């Protein structure tokens, strides 16, 4: 169970990115959605320890982790998949998955983690995680790392961002399988209806606050309504 208590994140110029956020997240699969710039990624980075809240507390299973470093939060059981996966010169896929697992892992284990995310293991094990990999490949390797860590709380920041439709279809399958297997909580930031559709709960963030939280049946119709409104506006624009 991860809890955020009155968490705010305010920039030095006084601009508030998140304002007094209160959340308790303990379900298997929770999706966070909301407009661009609403503070979703900041929320993820506060959980991972990359940002420190300006005020408020973050608790993991009742333990206050607000002041723990990124490393200590990782050790406490938080994983974080970046929206823009990082490239490394000379570090291979196998190296990263080994680091993620926290021990030397066998070739068979590496292959298992890669197959789980739909990558043909023998083509990737010894590949460098550098600019030669496509955005979609990097996203999957990022997910494979999180799987190798298998911690109690995993955060994914827009796993679908920047990948093509073909890869996206496979990605949905990957998350469906993760839903079935996970023993902890997956928190996923996403704009995609098909990802939101898997979620036990959807949290809507807008303007730096939690504006709604509930089951997909409660939240999705409202979201789709917002989209319809936009389409209508676009049509009106074209008529003018």
């Amino acid at each position, binding site marked *: 169970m991860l809890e955020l208590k009155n968490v705010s994140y305010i920039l030095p110029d006084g601009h508030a990115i998140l304002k007094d956020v209160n959340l308790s997240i303990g379900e298997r699969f929770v999706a966070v959605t909301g407009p661009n710039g609403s503070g979703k990624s900041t929320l993820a980075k506060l959980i991972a320890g990359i940002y420190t809240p300006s005020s408020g507390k973050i608790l993991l299973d009742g333990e206050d982790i607000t002041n723990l470093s990124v490393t200590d939060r*990782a050790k406490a059981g938080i994983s*974080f998949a970046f929206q823009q996966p*990082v490239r*490394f*010169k*000379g570090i291979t896929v196998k190296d990263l998955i080994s*680091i993620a697992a*926290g021990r030397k892992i066998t070739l068979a284990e590496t292959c298992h983690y890669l197959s789980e995310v739909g990558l043909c293991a023998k083509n990737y094990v010894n590949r460098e995680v550098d600019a030669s990999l496509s955005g979609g490949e990097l996203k999957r390797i990022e997910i494979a*790392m999180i799987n190798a860590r298998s911690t109690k709380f995993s955060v994914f920041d827009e796993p679908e961002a920047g990948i093509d439709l073909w890869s996206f279809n496979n990605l949905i399958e990957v998350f469906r399988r993760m839903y079935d297997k996970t023993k902890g909580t997956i928190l996923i930031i996403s704009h995609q209806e098909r990802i939101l559709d898997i979620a036990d709960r959807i949290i809507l963030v807008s303007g730096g606050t939690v504006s709604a939280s509930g089951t997909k049946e409660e939240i999705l119709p409202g979201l789709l309504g917002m989209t319809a409104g936009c389409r209508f506006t676009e049509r009106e624009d074209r008529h003018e």
Partner: protein
Amino acid sequence: MNKIEQRLLEQVADLHEMPEGAYSLRINGALASKRDSAHIQIVKKEDKPGIDIYIAPGTKNESVHIPVLLAETGLKETVYNDFHVGEDCDVTIVAGCGIHNCGVQDSEHSGIHTFYVERGAKLKYVEKHYGEGDGNGKRVMNPTTEVYLGPDSYMEMETTQIKGVDSTIRTTNAKLEAGSTLIIHEKIMTHGDQFAKTDFHVELNGEGCGTHVVSRSVAKDRSRQTFLSHVSGNAPCSGHTECDAIIMDDAKVTALPQIEANHVDASLIHEAAIGKIAGEQLIKLMTLGLTEKEAEEEIINGFLR
């Protein structure tokens, strides 16, 4: 060999003892031992320190090891080694120099290696430099490599200097004939007050020849590095020179890649990048449970692999 010499040998050649096949072992300024093989002949030079290595045409899948070990303080030497690689060979040459200096005088080794790679031959040349010892005497290595690549020949040169060399000026000059290829991978890490300068000159003289010069380096503490690379295209050819450096602490790095086209069909590219370790790389590895220091080590080890 004593224990110090054995350790140096392990560092520069990954060897615990001399291997099967041809080798030449130089310890403290003198030829300690050598062995020929059926196709490889090693001949001691009469007029100056060094050896001639003759590899018979058509020799395949053989290797030559020529390590140099310096364990006495204050020793300074210049050694001339000439490699004659016959037509259609496919061989590996492993050279390396290890200096152990626990005295107050400087130890210095300058190896001047000249390669004559004949038509159609394929050569892999691996060179490692390593220094150790806690004396105040400096460990200095100034290698010079001269390369003549015959038609349709291929040479891959891999040089590594990771630890303990206080001062190095590495000079490489190469002339390429038609259809030949030269690939250079250089890896350097400097720390403390060390200084390393590399200077590559590649002349692409024959039609269809090409080169790829890649240098990766890490400069730590107060160390200084200079990378110079000059590739000239004098025929229809392709050349690529690339320097990629990680700078840390109070180090200083200069990169001067230079390309010169003297023919309309010469296609030349240069790239140079210097920067500290990207913050996002550190954070990514920290989210996997590594400390900042561990993350830094992983990134450097990968970069210099």
